[in-house]
């Protein structure tokens, strides 16, 4: 699920709202030039670069800069969809993980006490959520107390480093506080030593949503002295601007000019994977060179060493959603799923596709432009329920062709001899008796499991999840549910098909229709909705045969 505020989720339920769709190139807004907005489809079952085409009005020649300065072709672009003017809960505005002295306790229905000043670190981080749009103003109401002194000013800046924090003075002037502009301050005296203010920040940089609030006493000193009394009580906040989700992030692949139109074609990070090759037939690349790796470690090596993506192993990685990678990797670590590879001129995209198929995983570029990894398990997020009140249509497919009740997995390959040393098979007897034998073979000379435990892990998973004719659902919606992402759990209510929200299915694919807003979501019963899948053969009814 996209990281959006509760207000966003509420707003998109509205039946007569004015959503805001944007198209940015290098943080410049070209939305007014878009003649037809694209559809963006993201499918977990396919690993491929998503390419879009968008026609921009160029009657005035305003888009000619792209052929005059070809360097602009390297610019990043982004499509977003949002809603304006959100009312926020204070809990969505203030972050409490950056500073250890911050404590919380509700002091009234309207205000939350963020902290008392018992240390010498008396400032607060304002970090609402991703998706505040450029030039969005965020106002919020605060009550302040500072050891009996008069509160004179409030500084808002995005510069967390204290020595560089500029001071906003009582005379109304201020030095440049950093990227974000301080634009409003009005402190009034209240009873019991409190001072009250409506303060705000304008987000000039759409990539930055963090600010720091600092209280300044009327004598110019900072309002912290460890007195145990000073503090800040925050009330609800209001956005004057747009909170948006990133539906697509990519780069320009081609620009064409015709009939006063400028046509921009896009591509995402996966495109680069189709241009890069791993190994040669004379000098194959083995990941790892000897022994074995977890499946996830092989993927990491492919993406960073050969695909050219950033290798920073934390959430600041600009290319890979590291949280999703960690969660994905943990499953293979817990299950001890090890593999070996042999690449002889394999394109990175092919290597990754084979890895996804062999591990029954989904790898894709999300709207934020980062690579996401997932082996579908039940989402930890709250299920989303859609009824006929929201759905414009509902289609159901049952495909016998996908049924598998006998899954073969070959493992322990010896590339030098072109020899498969072993294989394993998992059979679902009851399914075979009911539907007949339906076999599937996982066998890949570029990536293979190194032992029976690893091979059995995927064999059991595949036959367990596919031994019945699974249903696929797809439905169209307007904006309700626009914040749904692949991997989310959705429940449907439809009296005609007797769907009563008792069952949930995982979103396998999404299609955002930025033009007509008839967004379509695809659910697959073959994706597990049980808690995390861990190999425990004692609980399964399959017959496993080590050959």
């Amino acid at each position, binding site marked *: 699920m996209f990281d959006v505020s509760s207000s966003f989720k509420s707003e998109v339920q509205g*039946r*007569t*709202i*004015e*959503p805001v*769709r944007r198209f940015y190139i290098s943080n410049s807004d070209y939305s007014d030039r878009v003649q037809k907005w694209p559809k963006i489809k993201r499918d977990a079952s396919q690993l491929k670069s998503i390419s879009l085409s968008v026609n921009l009005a160029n*009657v*005035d020649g305003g888009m000619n800069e792209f052929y005059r300065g070809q360097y602009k072709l390297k610019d990043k672009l982004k499509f977003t969809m949002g809603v304006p003017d959100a009312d926020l809960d204070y809990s969505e505005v203030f972050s409490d993980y950056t500073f250890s002295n911050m404590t919380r306790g509700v002091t009234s229905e309207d205000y939350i006490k963020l902290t008392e000043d018992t240390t010498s670190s008396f400032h607060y981080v304002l970090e609402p959520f991703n998706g505040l749009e450029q030039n969005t103003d965020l106002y919020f109401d605060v009550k302040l107390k500072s050891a009996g002194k008069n509160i004179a000013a409030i500084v808002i800046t995005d510069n967390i480093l204290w020595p560089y924090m500029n001071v906003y003075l009582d005379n109304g002037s201020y030095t440049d506080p950093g990227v974000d502009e301080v634009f409003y301050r009005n402190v009034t005296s209240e009873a019991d030593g409190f001072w009250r203010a409506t303060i705000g920040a304008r987000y000039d940089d759409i990539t930055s949503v963090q600010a720091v609030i600092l209280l300044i006493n009327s004598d110019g000193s900072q309002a912290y002295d460890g007195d145990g009394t000073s503090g800040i009580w925050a009330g609800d906040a209001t956005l004057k601007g747009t909170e948006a989700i990133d539906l697509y992030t990519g780069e320009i692949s081609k620009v064409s000019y015709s009939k006063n139109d400028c046509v921009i074609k896009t591509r995402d990070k996966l495109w680069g994977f189709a241009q890069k090759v791993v190994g040669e037939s004379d000098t194959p690349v083995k990941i790892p060179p000897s022994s074995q790796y977890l499946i996830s470690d092989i993927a990491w090596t492919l993406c960073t060493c050969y695909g050219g993506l950033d290798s920073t192993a934390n959430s600041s990685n600009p290319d890979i959603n590291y949280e999703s990678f960690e969660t994905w990797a943990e499953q293979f670590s817990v299950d001890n799923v090890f593999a070996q590879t042999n690449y002889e001129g394999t394109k990175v995209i092919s290597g990754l596709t084979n890895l996804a198929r062999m591990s029954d995983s989904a790898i894709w570029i999300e709207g934020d432009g980062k690579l996401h990894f997932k082996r579908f398990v039940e989402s930890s997020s709250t299920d989303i329920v859609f*009824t*006929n*009140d*929201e*759905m*414009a*249509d*509902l289609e159901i497919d049952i495909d016998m062709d996908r049924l598998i009740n006998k899954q073969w997995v070959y493992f322990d390959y010896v590339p030098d001899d072109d020899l498969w040393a072993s294989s394993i098979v998992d059979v679902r007897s009851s399914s075979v008796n009911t539907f007949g034998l339906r076999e599937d073979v996982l066998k890949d000379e570029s990536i293979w499991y190194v032992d029976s435990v690893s091979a059995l892990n995927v064999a059991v998973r595949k036959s367990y999840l596919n031994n019945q004719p699974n249903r696929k659902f797809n439905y*169209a*919606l*307007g*904006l*309700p549910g626009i914040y749904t992402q692949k991997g989310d759990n959705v429940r449907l209510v*439809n009296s005609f098909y007797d769907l009563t929200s008792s069952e949930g299915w995982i979103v396998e694919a999404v299609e955002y229709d930025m*033009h*007509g*807003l*008839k967004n379509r979501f695809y659910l697959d019963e073959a994706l597990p909705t049980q808690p995390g899948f861990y190999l425990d053969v004692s609980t399964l009814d399959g017959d496993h045969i080590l050959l």
Partner: protein
Amino acid sequence: MALTFQLGISSVDAITILPGYSSKFSEKQLRSEIRTQNGRAYIYKWGDYYQAKLKVDFISGANASIINSWWDTNTELLFFINSSTATEVHSVFIANKIKPLDTYIKPYDNYLKGAITLEGY
């Protein structure tokens, strides 16, 4: 209550025009509609723009030349609708596909007529 109509780059140099009764003044809305299975409608408004289709005649040759040049250069204009109590102003451009004033009124050789389509931008 008489209405007067003026078109110009600003109020200072605006040209007074006298549109005929068949002229249309409208507001167009851009929106998407989703009708759900229960019959509910989700209506998303993306924006709107002003449109006026003016039938005009007896425009002097000098003024016709100015208006045609605004069309030729795609000039951003202001369209004033004045009543005795208020003035309505729209930011517009001349959206005709062909030159708006191109027909002389018989038997004059210094008055033209035509149709001007104004649209907001």
